[in-house]
């Protein structure tokens, strides 16, 4: 059994004391930022990227991965206890979780979230192990035309899945592609869009853009209304759900895991879409749909399973194709490049220890999370009461020092400030930054694949449509856009995001 041998390799990689420690550090940090509202995984991973330079590649990626799925756990805690979702993916959990807490069933809600997340994490780990290798094997046969089309598909999907209008998502994608081209053109050596600034010759750093748009812009947005944050923390008494609760959570956990796993693979969504979809579907199919919004345990189990599953399956396109499905994955790709690993389908064959180590570490990470979250819940609860006016200057400090230390230059700090302003403007104009960031990292790759594909076809652009896989990928993308722009679908999409 090849799979068993591979998992064995993963076990031996992830079970070293050093890697276990970084896995624990990752999920601990993830829970921490998940609990703290106003600080998300994107900004945190961006801040920590410079730190990971000094670590071995496997440890660095294990830790960063832990931060991402750990934040999904932490986000649910604040949703349930204080009705403040720590993460976007936990917004729907607050609907029923907080109601349960008000009825004195906070413990049951937290346990449900943890059990659901753990189950989903386990299943998603297995899905990754089963489906990633064959996908990578297919991708190894891809030529430049296929990769170009795959990226087009990814960007089109991120447009459809973005919040707000399709037009703006498209605009943001193209803007991101253009920004990605700033710097020296690899083929001709021409310096493009550098305006004579020497520091821009190497391009704009991805981390700098991410921190500006997700760190600084987010802080500014939070400062708009510092309104009254409810600081009434519900007491956690009995952690154990009743037998009736256990019975009621099985179905939602299974469905949530399925929905979350499937949607997590799609570009542009990650964990957020899954949790929304799982809640909406559960509300439709559940026998207890009348209780939704009033403290239904299904309303906690389904979205919490879904967001954890989605957070993990979103690693599939990143690990097998080298294509990020959300900004966090784009940062992971950045981390790989920093470590000298070329992301793409060859990672599995060339870096098997890295690949399987990350996957197996996810299961251990999930185990750590259950231990971290349930018995230590009291500590996390206390953190919720850290006021935002104390939090944001600290975030700003970490962003500034982190960005500075990337290349030891204050220039990057200025660029970050610029993107902070730009990011805030986009927030105000309802233009989502996530598709832009994806396009930003894909921009140079897309140009290179397009150049190579056209070189091979001697300038014939029909190559993208005559090669079957490439044509199929483009057709899928076109289908997604058409589906997204049909008025009825469009309304549904808006409703799904509003809920």
């Amino acid at each position, binding site marked *: 059994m090849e799979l068993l041998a591979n998992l064995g390799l993963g076990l031996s990689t992830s079970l070293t004391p050093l890697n276990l420690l970084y896995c624990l550090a990752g999920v601990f940090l993830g829970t921490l930022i998940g609990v703290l509202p106003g600080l998300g995984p994107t900004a945190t991973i961006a801040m920590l990227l410079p*730190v990971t330079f000094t670590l071995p590649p496997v440890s660095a990626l294990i830790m960063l991965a832990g931060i991402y799925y750990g934040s999904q756990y932490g986000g649910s805690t604040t949703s349930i206890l204080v009705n403040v979702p720590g993460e976007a993916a936990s917004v729907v959990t607050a609907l029923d979780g907080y109601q349960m807490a008000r009825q004195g069933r906070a413990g049951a809600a937290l346990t449900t979230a943890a059990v659901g997340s753990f189950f989903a994490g386990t299943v998603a780990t297995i899905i990754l192990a089963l489906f990633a290798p064959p996908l990578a094997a297919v991708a190894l046969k891809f030529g430049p035309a296929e990769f170009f089309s795959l990226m087009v598909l990814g960007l089109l999907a991120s447009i459809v899945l973005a919040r707000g209008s399709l*037009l*703006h998502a*498209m*605009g943001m994608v*193209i*803007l991101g*592609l*253009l920004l990605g*081209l700033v710097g020296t*053109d690899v*083929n*001709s050596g*021409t310096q*493009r*869009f550098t305006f004579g600034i020497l520091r821009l010759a190497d391009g704009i750093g991805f981390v700098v853009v991410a921190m500006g748009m997700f760190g*600084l812009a987010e*802080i*500014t*947005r939070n*400062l708009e*209304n*510092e309104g009254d944050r409810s600081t009434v923390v519900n007491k956690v008494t009995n952690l154990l759900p009743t037998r009736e609760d256990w019975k009621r959570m099985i179905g939602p956990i299974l469905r949530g895991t399925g929905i979350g796993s499937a949607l997590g693979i799609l570009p542009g969504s990650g964990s957020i879409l899954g949790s929304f979809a799982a809640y909406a579907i559960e509300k439709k199919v559940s026998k207890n749909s009348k209780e939704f919004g009033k403290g239904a345990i299904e309303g906690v189990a389904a979205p919490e399973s879904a967001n954890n599953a989605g957070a993990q399956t979103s690693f599939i396109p990143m690990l097998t194709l080298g294509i990020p499905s959300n900004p966090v994955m784009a940062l992971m790709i950045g981390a790989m490049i920093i470590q000298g690993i070329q992301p793409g389908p060859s990672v599995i064959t060339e870096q098997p220890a890295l690949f399987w180590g990350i996957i197996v570490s996810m299961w251990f990470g999930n185990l750590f999370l259950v231990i971290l979250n349930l018995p230590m819940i009291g500590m996390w609860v206390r953190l919720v009461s850290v*006021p*935002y*006016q*104390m939090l*944001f*200057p*600290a975030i*700003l*400090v970490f*962003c*500034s*020092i982190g960005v*500075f*230390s990337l290349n*030891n230059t*204050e*220039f990057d*700090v*200025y660029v*970050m*400030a610029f993107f*902070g302003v730009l990011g*805030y*403007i986009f927030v*105000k*104009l*309802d*233009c989502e930054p996530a598709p832009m960031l994806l396009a930003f990292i894909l921009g140079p790759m*897309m*140009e290179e694949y*397009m150049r190579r594909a*056209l*070189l091979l*076809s*001697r*300038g*014939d652009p029909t190559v993208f449509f005559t090669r079957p896989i490439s044509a199929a990928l483009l057709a899928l993308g076109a289908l997604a856009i058409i589906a997204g722009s049909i008025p009825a679908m469009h309304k549904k999409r808006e409703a799904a995001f509003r809920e």
Partner: protein
Amino acid sequence: MNPIARNGKDFWAGIIYIVAGSGAWIISRDYGMGSAGKMGPAYFPTILGALLTVIGIISILRSFLKSGSPIGVVAWKGLALIVVSTLLFGMIVRGAGLIIALPLLVIVSAFASSRFSWKYSLAEAAVITVFCIVVFLKGLGVPLPILGSWFGY
């Protein structure tokens, strides 16, 4: 309300797209277009710039036809203080060193909050400065001075 268009968000986003898009292809004219089979450095940005300009025009046209929600509250003070404190940090960190740049960053940015209090901010500034010096300088070896060149170090 926006006096120019019925949907201020669409209008201003459209302006940004047009400026960036047309800027991209105008600047690209200096770079050498090449041909489809041998793409020059201007090829890809020219296509993108043209596309973005078209999207910008559509967005502006739409802003006159369909009304949308207003832009809403803008945290001018927050934005200004966040940007100023960050820029200030970049400008003085080498000259003055972390022991001055960090507290300034914390306190200036903290002014952005309506709940600003000297007592808490000073305490926070002290804690963060010590923390960063220990973790980033001593722990991770980031080459930043505690006291900068302006003090003869």
